[in-house]
C-alpha cells in the first residue's frame, strides 16, 4: 500500500489533471476544426470536392473566379447597405431610449425594460410569415429599406438592454457638471455620456451588425429580386446556378462573406477582454 506510485502528490496530480484536460480539449478542438478545415482547403483547391483533402496545387483561382459584380460585389454591397443602415438606426434608437431608462425614475421604466427583455427573447423566426403578409399589404416587400427596418426592429430590444447597462456605468456627476456650465440634456447625452461610453456603443453597434450580417431568414423572406439580395441569401442561388456545384468557389465566397464578421468579432472581444464578457452581458 505504501508503494511510491500510490503516494498522492499534489503537484503530480495537478500535472496529470492538466494533461487530461489538454487531451480532452484537443479532441474537441479537432472535431470542431474539421468542417473549418474544409472551408480553407477547398477555397484553395480548383478541384475541390465535399471532403477535406490537401489541394495538390494550391491556387487563388477560386477567389478570382468569384470576385465579379454578380457573385460577390453586388451581394456584399447589398449586405452592407441593409445591415449598415439597420445598425445605424438600431444604435441611434437604442442610445436615445437608453437615456431616460438609465437616468429617470418612473413607474413605467421597469415594465418597459421588462417588456424589452421579454421581446428580445422571442423567436423572431415565428413572426416571419405574418411579416411577409404585412409587407405585401403595405408595399414594403422586396425593398432593401423595408428589410433594414424590420432587421432594426428585431435587433432593437437587445440593443436597448445592452446600451442601458453600459449607460448605467457612466456616473451622472459628469453630466451635472456640464449642465451647470449651461449644457442642455441632449447636449449632455451627445457630448458627455456617449463619448464616455464609446466602447459600449461600439460593442452594441458591432454586435448588432454581426447578427444582421449573418441573418438568413429575414432577407430570404422579404427580398425577391436577385439584384437586391444580400450575401447571406445570394450564396444559395449561387449554390444551385451552375448545375454541378463548384465547391471551391462556394468555399472562396463563404470566406469572403464571413471575413467581415470574424474581424469585427475579434475587435469587440479584445475590447471586452477575450470575448468572455459578451457571454456575461448576454447572461444579464
Amino acid at each position, binding site marked *: 500500500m505504501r508503494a511510491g506510485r500510490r503516494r498522492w502528490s499534489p503537484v503530480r496530480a495537478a500535472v496529470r489533471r492538466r494533461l487530461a*484536460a489538454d487531451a480532452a480539449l484537443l479532441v474537441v478542438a479537432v472535431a470542431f476544426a474539421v468542417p473549418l478545415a474544409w472551408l480553407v482547403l477547398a477555397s484553395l483547391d480548383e478541384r475541390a470536392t465535399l471532403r477535406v483533402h490537401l489541394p495538390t496545387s494550391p491556387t487563388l483561382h477560386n477567389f478570382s473566379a468569384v470576385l465579379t459584380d454578380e457573385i460577390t460585389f453586388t451581394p456584399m454591397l447589398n449586405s452592407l447597405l441593409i445591415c449598415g443602415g439597420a445598425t445605424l438606426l438600431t444604435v441611434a434608437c437604442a442610445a*436615445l431610449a437608453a437615456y431616460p431608462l438609465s437616468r429617470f425614475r418612473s413607474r413605467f421604466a421597469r415594465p418597459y425594460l421588462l417588456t424589452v427583455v421579454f421581446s428580445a427573447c422571442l423567436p423572431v423566426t415565428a413572426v416571419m410569415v405574418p411579416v411577409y403578409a404585412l409587407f405585401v399589404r403595405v408595399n414594403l416587400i422586396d425593398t432593401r429599406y423595408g428589410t433594414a427596418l424590420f432587421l432594426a426592429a428585431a435587433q432593437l430590444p437587445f440593443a436597448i438592454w445592452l446600451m442601458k447597462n453600459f449607460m448605467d456605468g457612466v456616473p451622472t456627476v459628469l453630466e451635472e457638471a456640464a449642465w451647470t456650465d449651461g449644457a442642455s440634456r441632449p447636449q449632455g447625452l451627445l457630448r458627455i455620456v456617449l463619448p464616455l461610453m464609446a466602447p459600449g456603443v461600439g460593442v452594441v453597434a458591432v454586435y448588432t451588425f454581426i447578427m444582421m450580417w449573418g441573418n438568413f431568414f429575414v432577407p430570404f423572406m422579404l427580398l425577391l429580386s436577385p439584384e437586391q439580395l444580400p450575401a447571406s441569401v445570394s450564396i444559395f442561388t449561387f449554390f444551385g446556378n451552375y448545375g454541378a456545384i463548384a465547391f471551391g468557389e462556394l468555399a472562396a465566397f463563404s470566406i469572403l462573406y464571413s471575413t467581415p464578421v470574424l474581424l469585427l468579432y475579434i475587435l469587440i472581444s479584445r475590447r471586452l477582454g477575450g470575448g468572455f464578457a459578451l457571454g456575461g452581458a448576454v*447572461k444579464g
Partner: protein
Amino acid sequence: MRHLVRWSPLAPATALLLLFLAGPVGYCAYLAFTDTQLTGQESASFVGLANFRHAVGDPEFRNAVLLTVVFTLISAVLGQNTLGLALAGLLRRASRPVRAVTGTVVITAWVLPEIVAGFLLYTFFERRGTLNALLAWLHLPAQDWLFTLPILAVSFANVWRGTAFSMLVYSAALDGIPQEVAESAEMDGARGLRRLWHITLPMIRRSVGTNLMLNTLQTLSVFGLIWALTRGGPGNRSQTLPVFMYDQAFVKSLIGYGTAVALLLLVVGALFSAVYLRLLREEV
C-alpha cells in the same frame, strides 16, 4: 408636460418596436384565425379555431412538434449545454496554448454566418463528405447521414454552431465562484462528479437556468441551418416547426395555417421567455 419631454427619447425606439415587432405579432394572432391563402387576399375569411383543430389532426404537424422536441433536447439541452459546461470546466485546467486553440476554434464556429455553417456541415455529413471518409479510414461502415439520420445530423450541426455561447456563459459563471470555496472543497476531498454535483452546480444554478432558456429559445427558431443541410427532408424527417411553418405558408400557400403554427411557436417561445425573465428578475 415635463414628464413627456423627459421620456420623449423613447419615442423612435417605441415606434419602431410597435410597427415592426408588436404589429406583426398582432397580425399573426389575427391571421391564425383566418383561411388566408397566398393568392387572392380578398377571399380570406374568419374561420375561428379551424386552423388549430386542423393542426391537432394533422400527422405532419405532430411530426414537426415531435422533431422540434427531439431537436431541442438533443442539441440545446444535452448538446450545447453539457458540452459548453464541460469545455468551460476543462478550459480552466488546460495549458495556455490548448486553451487558446480550443477557444478560438469553438468560437469561430459560433461567429460564422448561419448559412456558411450550414454549408460546412453539409459537406461534412454528405454521402461523399468528410465524415464518411473518416469512417472509411477507420474501417467503419459509411452512412448517408443526411438520409438515414437527418434529425441527428442537424442536431449535431446545431451543437457545432451553438456550443460556444454556453461555453462563454459557463466560463463567466465559473470565474464567479470564490477561490476559497473551490479550495475548501479540494481540502475536503470532494473531487470529480461529486464536487460538480454538490458544489459547482448549486453555485452556478442561475447561469444553468438562464443558459438553458436562451439555448432553447435560440434552437426553437433555427431555420437557416436546417434549410441549408436538409431543407426539412428527406420527406419531412427533419422538418421542425419553423421549416413546417414555411412549407405550409409558402410552398402550399396556406398563409392562415402557417401563421397558426407560427403563433403556437410564438406562444411556446413567450413561455420560455417569461421563465427566463423570472430567473433574471432581481437583476433588472
